[in-house]
């Protein structure tokens, strides 16, 4: 069942995510600057940052142990694996038989586990707090995400990402209201998960999202920054694959590749722009307010589930 072509397609997907991720995070920075009426950095600034950091010296505190050193690699490894498991160039995931929707959600959890532990391991007090917040946000976000995705999977009849994409794009889903409410709940949860305002400000060094990163420097920091950009892009890609697979080809073929890639970039562009507008239209609020937004998202996911039960 694991054939070589599929494996190559998977590698291609991973390569695209790796190469495009800094572009999209750069785009978010450009959009933010424009909305603030600043000139801001160029679109390619994040590539330059990563290359620069890769050449820098690696500095770490004496107390930092093996978790601290392994985390950049594990994080990147998880993101690469997720990039292979979700459908990007077509409605079918290249290696979907290795992991389904649930496995993808738990691979994000694996990356987060290391990330938070690295924060504690760095022995920096900000990093420790940041790690705590990271895990608390996960407690709030993961159930909502799971419910929204579970409803879609129920509508499609399987947790296989390809089957879901096929059902949603092929119009095989009768309960449209349930689908779209689920999508909305997923978007809210994903927004929080991606480390955006109003609970996080990833650009501010002393803010706690940056927390687990506080002691990283040089190549390790470069890998983590790159990996965080990949995570944002992968969450967008997961949302696209599950809720908006429209237009992507039913199966992979070399002929449709350019079109599929262009479509993916366009959809992601639209979502990033939307996210930028929402994010910059909001004030920074205290972390302990986070449950409020999550309750709203949970309410939406629950409503979507009720709609699924009523089949509307």
């Amino acid at each position, binding site marked *: 069942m694991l054939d070589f072509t599929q494996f190559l397609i998977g590698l291609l997907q991973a390569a695209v995510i790796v190469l495009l991720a800094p572009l999209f995070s750069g785009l978010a920075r450009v959009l933010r600057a424009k909305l603030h009426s600043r000139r801001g950095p160029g679109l390619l600034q994040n590539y330059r940052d990563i290359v620069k950091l890769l050449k820098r010296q690696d500095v770490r505190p004496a*107390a930092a142990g093996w978790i601290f050193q392994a985390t950049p690699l594990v994080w990147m490894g998880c993101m690469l694996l997720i990039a292979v498991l979700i459908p990007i160039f077509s409605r079918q995931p290249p290696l979907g038989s290795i992991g389904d929707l649930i496995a993808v959600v*738990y691979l994000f959890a694996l990356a987060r586990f290391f990330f938070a532990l690295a924060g504690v391991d760095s022995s920096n007090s900000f990093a420790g707090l940041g790690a*705590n917040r990271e895990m608390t946000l996960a407690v709030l976000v993961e159930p909502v995400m799971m419910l929204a995705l579970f409803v879609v999977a129920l509508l499609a009849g*399987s947790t296989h990402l390809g089957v879901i994409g096929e059902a949603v794009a092929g119009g095989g889903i009768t309960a449209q209201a349930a689908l779209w409410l689920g999508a909305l709940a997923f978007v809210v949860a994903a927004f929080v998960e991606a480390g955006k305002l109003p609970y996080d400000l990833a650009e501010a060094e*002393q803010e706690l999202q940056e927390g687990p990163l506080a002691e990283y420097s040089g190549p390790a920091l470069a890998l983590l920054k790159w990996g965080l950009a990949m995570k944002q892009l992968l969450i967008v890609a997961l949302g696209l694959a599950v809720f908006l697979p429209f237009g992507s080809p039913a199966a992979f073929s070399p002929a449709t590749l350019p079109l599929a890639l262009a479509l993916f970039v366009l959809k992601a562009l639209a979502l990033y722009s939307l996210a930028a507008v929402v994010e910059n239209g909001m004030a920074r609020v205290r972390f302990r307010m986070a449950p409020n937004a999550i309750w709203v998202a949970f309410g939406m996911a629950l409503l979507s589930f009720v709609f699924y039960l009523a089949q509307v």
Partner: protein
Amino acid sequence: MSVPLLFLAVLVYLLGGFAALALNRVGKAAQYAAGLTAVAAAAIALAAAIPILVSGAVDVFETPGVLPFANFAVRFDGLAALMVSVIALLSAATGVYSLAYLDAYAGRNLGFLGFFTNLFLASTLLVVTVSNAVYFLVFWELMALASYCLVTFETEKEEAVRAGFLYLLIAHAGTALIMLAFLLYFYHGESFDFAAFRLTPLPQPSRDLAFLLAFFGFGAKAGLAPLHIWLPRAHPAAPSHISALLSGAMIKTAIYGILRICADCLGASAWWWGLTVLAFGAASAVLGVLFANAERDLKRLLAYCSVENIGVILMGTGVGMLGVATGRPVLAALGLLAALYHLVNHAAFKGLLFLSAGSVVFRLGTKDMDAMGGLARRMPWTALAFFVGAAAVSALPPLNGFVSEWFLYQSLFTASGGHLAAVRASAPIFAVVLALAGALAAACFVKAYGLTFAGVSRSPRARQAQEAPLPMLLGMGLLALTVLGLGLGAPWVAPVIGRVAAGLIGQAPPVMADGVWVFPVEGAPALLSTPLIAILLLGAVTLPALMAAVFSGARAGRRVDETAWACGYNYSPRMEITAGGFGRPLRAIFGQLYGLGARAARPGRATARAFQGLVALATRVEPAWNDRVYDPIARGVQGIGRRVQALQIGDIRLYCLYIVLTLAVLLLIATRW
């Protein structure tokens, strides 16, 4: 062949136990006698169980025995074999581990400890294989009493004695309920054999009653919320390898009881049974892990986490029972598979976690996580063992905890597709509860590993700790390899456990794996392959390593700073996050569940309230129902006990009077009727 081997294992346990007792004066010899016989008996028990697991055969043995009304019957089927292997595995690991670990208790009654440990293990083996209710209760009671002696081994610690008493009380309340369930069967079928139970045509109200009695009776022993209260006190009070046995093996026998009575004998005949089990399981899962998050005592944290995992196992059991009741054999097998898989997994990783926590306690002499930190440098192998356990209990792929929770998700997914409205409407909600419990467990074990092994050492003893001795590392290594095997070997383990699950409800073994892939239902697309995830993950990790190596090269170099950055202030280890700090946001979010809200609402002046809040933060957060529900019950029982004491004055003449009076009353009754 399997039953004689089982008896041999029991015999070896008992011989070892008595040898330890005889050698009590020579502490070290007693320690070795008990530990080595436990390992040998475990090997024999495994040799008995594995052929049955592999072949799917059933081995039975029956003899009239000493009691006139009950046969001594042993039935070694798939479920029994699975339980026996779990017990044997833990017995082997803890047996090796205890060879060095008990040095910490040198000069104490190690002979007694060894005797009760082996007695406990032997009775546990018999509990899960015997198939007559009377003998089941006898061994069940023996197991409870032996474990009580183990919990209260450190008699000078008042905490341990009180925990032991509470445990004894709740265990016996549970046993009373189980006894009633068995008597109900005897009343209708006039036999105590489990085989006869299966054939007894109970009327439905009696069935419902028997289910409730058995579920709550065994539930009390399993640590089901809200009957869990004894568990986080009793398990950590015992020496660490005993904690591993209690959390890994003993509470599983209660799950075995629920499966045997509710699913096997009673046949799960009403759909609300499954839903009840599912609901109580879900409540245990969330509450257990929430309380675990508030702990700063490492072993209590692990014990609360056992409540969570019992909940997860019960959720699978509930789905399986729903499948039986609604006539969906595929669903039934899937749910029971998830439950049994998680049962085995929990035994492996919780045993591992308790043993590695025990190594830390062995070296540091404290269970307080705020006095640990940075131990990964001092005790690298122990840290690695704990890390494997922590990642597995947090359900991270590709380890075993993830595999069983994945099966549970799939079973809940399948359950959602049924016709029963109550199940359709609740199954996805239970999936959300499972996701919540999983995320909370991850948070909890980031805290547990992070504060214990990562970062900077926060006490002088932590700075000077040494790696645990070799026997202890071997014990942990055995369990760590089991955890890896159960996770990465999922495509080969799942069919074996699937056959046990199907055998329990009299179905043909389901097809759940093909090559390196597993899938929930036959014909569904392949959905998961943990070996391939592991291989790809390893491959994917090398890529960034290469990237970093290529770019940075040799000229950049490395620098290690003495301390972390502290905003320009002088760094101090006290700046690091503490156990209390780690649980803080969750306590704020789930305050209602912790019962903190009720405490804050107490009338009083503002300063007093503020002080109370401070104290409440500084001390451990206790679930509010401890003092509201259990203490009154315990006080009530003690009060009754004191009143009953009035009958016993110690005067022999009075006792003779009692006997005469009783005889007179009995005679009166006998002559009247």
